């Protein structure tokens, strides 16, 4: 006999970046949510706490936070001559698993798109002519613009605590940031990460060549940070792993509104 579960308002598949944020915002609206997540449940304090999280063998070599190939994997072949075979040991890409998903182990590179990426077909036609687009290539303009999304990039960066330096502040170019970026409405919530020696050498060499080195926007907190959005928007809890990479794990006090299995 089929099992009948209690009815919920919304089903969100998976509690990764998108699922977790979506679930939290919908829960804040008072909706009841079922969020099936095939991986493990995770909490900031027990699962990402120093010193256990610094266990290189467990996390860096044995990929504890990643998907287990024995559970789910892909077949891979390197050329058309090979037979595709199951990928039995992760290496070149690391799919994740569990609450927070890839957000718990991503490198934290947090770039915004360029303005032209939203209207890529128009840009190519204007700049290079329509003839350069091959027959059948589906390149198109998006139906939204960078300007429409900018406030949401800004909100996300402030919740996640992105470290960086603005290079284009509402049209004003700032030397120490990325002068080529799409205009930002505000500075990053945290200052850039400090430079290691190799990064500093690179910066000096690039600058000497007349290039424009700038600190990469990083989902790694350069200082202790309490997301300002948390006080007004408790539905979104940006959890910081011990290595201070921003990830989204649903705040425990919202749990009564939805459950995972």
């Amino acid at each position, binding site marked *: 006999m089929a099992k009948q579960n209690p009815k919920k308002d919304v089903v969100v598949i998976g509690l990764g970046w998108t699922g977790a944020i979506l679930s939290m915002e919908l829960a804040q609206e008072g909706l009841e949510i079922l969020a099936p997540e095939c991986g493990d449940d995770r909490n900031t304090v027990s699962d990402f706490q120093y*010193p*256990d999280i610094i266990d290189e063998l467990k996390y860096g070599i044995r990929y504890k936070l990643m998907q287990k190939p024995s559970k789910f994997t892909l077949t891979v072949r390197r050329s058309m001559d090979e037979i595709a075979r199951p990928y039995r040991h992760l290496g070149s890409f690391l799919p994740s698993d569990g609450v927070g998903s890839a957000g718990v182990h991503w490198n934290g590179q947090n770039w915004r798109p360029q303005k032209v990426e939203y209207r890529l077909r128009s840009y190519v036609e204007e700049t290079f002519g329509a003839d350069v687009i091959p027959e059948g290539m589906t390149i198109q303009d998006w139906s939204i613009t960078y300007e429409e999304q900018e406030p949401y990039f800004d909100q996300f960066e402030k919740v996640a605590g992105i470290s960086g330096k603005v290079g284009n502040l509402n049209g004003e170019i700032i030397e120490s940031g990325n002068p080529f970026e799409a205009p930002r409405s505000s500075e990053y919530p945290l200052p850039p990460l400090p430079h290691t020696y190799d990064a500093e050498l690179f910066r000096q060499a690039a600058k000497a060549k007349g290039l424009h080195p700038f600190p990469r926007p990083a989902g790694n907190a350069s200082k202790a940070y309490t997301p300002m959005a948390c006080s007004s928007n408790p539905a979104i809890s940006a959890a910081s792993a011990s290595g201070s990479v921003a990830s989204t794990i649903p705040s425990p006090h919202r749990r009564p509104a939805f459950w995972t299995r």
Partner: protein
Amino acid sequence: MTPRPQDEALTALEAGKVGLPPQLRDFFYFLLQNTKEGYFADPKYGGNHGMQAWVHIGFPGAHGSYAEWVNNYNADYPLSPVSISGERA
């Protein structure tokens, strides 16, 4: 076995000359991998006793933060290794 036969056995194993059944094809790979892991992983796994492997290569182990040291270019890191359990070398 004395050291020389040991080396010969391992060399033959690595070269695939020991005639193992096909399902043991990766035995040497895992043997070497687990040896490295045991040697360099945190002492909680049973190897790297007293963090001596880390002392040997100058690895600081499980210190909580290096942010304060990032701008000390080309300076020796002054602290000795610490394990996840909190023991110091």
